[in-house]
């Protein structure tokens, strides 16, 4: 029996002894499909608050929609039309876009409660005939420390009305709290509508979200009072008017259309805030060869009328694609320091299935971390040539190989797989036309003996075109 006095040999032996059977492939694949499907559906459910545009259109019959459109065309040069549109939707910070077509109520004032150094702040509530939204945040004592091996069992918050009626939470999500450095977490909750004749409710928070059990006060009860919303507290949402007749309305931003895969990119609406604007738009395509979420429209830069670079930040688009929909939504926030109009320059990336193509690679009997192998094979994939340059065992984990490639076409990335050896995982990729890119995955150890055949599964293309949008507030 070999002496196990060298750490590397012993570790190999321990790893070998600690090895368990790999999961059944069918189980792994079916759970994967379920995870993706349910994750996608869950995101859609949680984002319903922001699908007011769709809800609005569903309320109108087609005949009424046409009537509205014709009226808009006739009146589009009238400033009162723009004002009327502003009133349908509004924007409330940390809540998002709300429907103002029914009376809106909000908190009379924020409410803050402190217990044992923990502070809960109910920052905002927005009520209409459809739902009640409540946003709260909390902060921890300065000396709070997460205990070891902690368990967090969070009982859901709920509202209690004066008559005892309980409204359970329908949906909830984490909201960004970068504007509140002391906040540990900011949480948005949706409940059923509170009747218009009820102007108060109790928010009951049994457990602070994501705080380990028995480390914070429980069973918070916070009294909330509501009043009709002050219009000054709701920022206007300027909807994009799409009409067959050009107008002179300043909100009219042209939508770019490109024939490639039927991709279009457009600005839908914007919100005016005291410190800037949030621009909302969408990218859609018609060619089903590009799957849902297969197009990524990235804002590369913004210039103003003086050709100055304008800073921007990602914003919550507030909308998600329907299952199977060939459309994605985007949102960006800009400040107020610019000279209109702004020119938004997008880069369009699309992922498509590869139509085949493979190359061979032999790592030899004992591949070492950091080792490189020249491959220098040209592979035709989707009618374009990918130069497979070299492979390296990247050292991230045993068996993880990065394959470095380059293409003179608009292919910016490609994924490979060894169909004969299920991978441990994958990764890698640098999207930039003409520049080298890499793709990799991890073989399960022990690494199989070569020669190995790697097959292309997907390619990412940089879609050419002038993906520029112009906008003025």
């Amino acid at each position, binding site marked *: *029996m070999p*002496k*196990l006095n060298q*750490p*590397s040999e*012993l*570790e190999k*032996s*321990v*790893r*070998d*002894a*600690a*090895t*368990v*059977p*790999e*999961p*059944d492939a069918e*189980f*792994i694949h079916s*759970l*994967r499909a*379920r*995870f*993706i499907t*349910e*994750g*996608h559906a*869950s*995101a859609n459910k*949680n*984002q319903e608050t922001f699908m007011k545009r769709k809800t609005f259109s569903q309320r109108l019959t087609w005949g009424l929609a046409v009537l509205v459109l014709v009226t808009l065309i006739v009146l589009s040069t009238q400033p009162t039309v723009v004002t009327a549109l502003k009133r349908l939707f509004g924007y409330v910070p940390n809540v998002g876009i709300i429907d103002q077509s029914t009376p809106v109520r909000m908190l009379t004032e924020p409410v803050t409660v402190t217990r044992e150094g923990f502070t809960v702040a109910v920052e905002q509530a927005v009520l209409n005939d459809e739902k009640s939204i409540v946003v709260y945040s909390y902060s921890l004592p300065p000396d709070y420390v*997460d*205990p*070891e*091996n*902690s*368990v967090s069992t*969070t009982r859901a918050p709920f509202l209690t009305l004066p008559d005892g009626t309980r409204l359970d939470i329908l949906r909830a*999500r*984490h909201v960004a709290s970068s504007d509140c450095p002391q906040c*540990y*977490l900011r*949480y948005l909750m949706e409940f059923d509508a509170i009747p218009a004749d009820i102007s108060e409710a109790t928010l009951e928070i049994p457990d602070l*979200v*994501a705080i380990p059990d028995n480390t914070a006060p429980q069973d918070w009860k916070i009294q909330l009072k509501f009043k009709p919303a002050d219009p000054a507290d709701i920022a206007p949402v300027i909807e994009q008017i799409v009409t067959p007749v050009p107008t002179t309305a300043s909100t009219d931003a042209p939508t770019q259309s490109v024939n490639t895969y039927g991709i279009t990119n457009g600005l839908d609406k914007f919100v005016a805030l005291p410190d800037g604007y949030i621009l909302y738009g969408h990218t859609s395509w018609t060619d089903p060869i590009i799957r*849902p*979420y297969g197009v990524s429209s990235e804002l590369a830069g913004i210039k103003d009328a003086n050709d100055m670079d304008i800073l921007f930040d990602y914003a919550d688009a507030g909308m*998600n*694609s329907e299952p199977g929909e060939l459309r994605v939504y985007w949102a960006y926030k800009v400040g107020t320091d610019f000279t209109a109009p702004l020119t938004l320059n997008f880069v369009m990336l699309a*992922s498509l299935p590869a139509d085949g193509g493979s190359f061979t690679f032999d790592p030899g009997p004992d591949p070492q*971390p950091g080792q490189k192998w020249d491959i220098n094979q040209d592979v035709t994939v989707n009618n374009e040539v990918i130069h497979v340059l070299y492979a390296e065992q990247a050292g*991230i*984990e*045993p068996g993880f190989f990065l394959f470095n490639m380059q293409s003179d076409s608009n292919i910016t990335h490609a994924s490979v797989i060894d169909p004969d050896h299920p991978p*441990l*995982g*994958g*990764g890698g990729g640098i999207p930039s036309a003409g520049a080298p890119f890499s793709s990799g995955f991890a073989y399960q150890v022990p690494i199989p003996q070569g020669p190995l055949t790697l097959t292309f599964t997907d390619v990412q293309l940089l879609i050419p075109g002038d993906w520029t949008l112009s906008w003025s507030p």
Partner: protein
Amino acid sequence: MENEEPRQVEIELKTITHALAGDEAALARIYDAYARPIYRYHYSRVGNAPDAEDLTSQTFMAVLEALPRYQHRGRFTAWMFQIARNKVMDHFRKNPGMKDVTEESVADPLQSEALEAIYQRESKTHLKALLHLLEDDERELIRLRFTAELSFVQIGQLLGRSEDAVRKSIRRILDRLAVQMEAQNA
């Protein structure tokens, strides 16, 4: 001591953000990165495929439910495995008759004549037996390091300990195992 690179690549905030938005590619990235390691971890606790599959499914469904509450501090792996560990604890709480497979009694290798023959042919069985005899927290370290293949940093984040403390603890366990193996071989 050994390769210091993390065995598990940490998921980026951008991927998490996209997953929260329902991006299927991002959801797939998260799943592909953790499905097998989490399954292996569960199997190492329960010792059979059906329960390991059930726990793995529960873990990933719990991840979907908890993802909106996740606050990114670069500890996504530790967060995922905390959920996995919680599911295992729930499993044993609900099934008190079941035992953690690593707690099953193992015949003393030094006294079992049947095992003696095996040990002469197979050091792996001997080493497995020694692993069974470790303390609970030591077995957990071995599982996380060698079955789930987490890095020292990730194990430290999961267990609330420093990377150095984790590294030293595992080193001590391995040194002890080496001594025990050599004593048996002597």
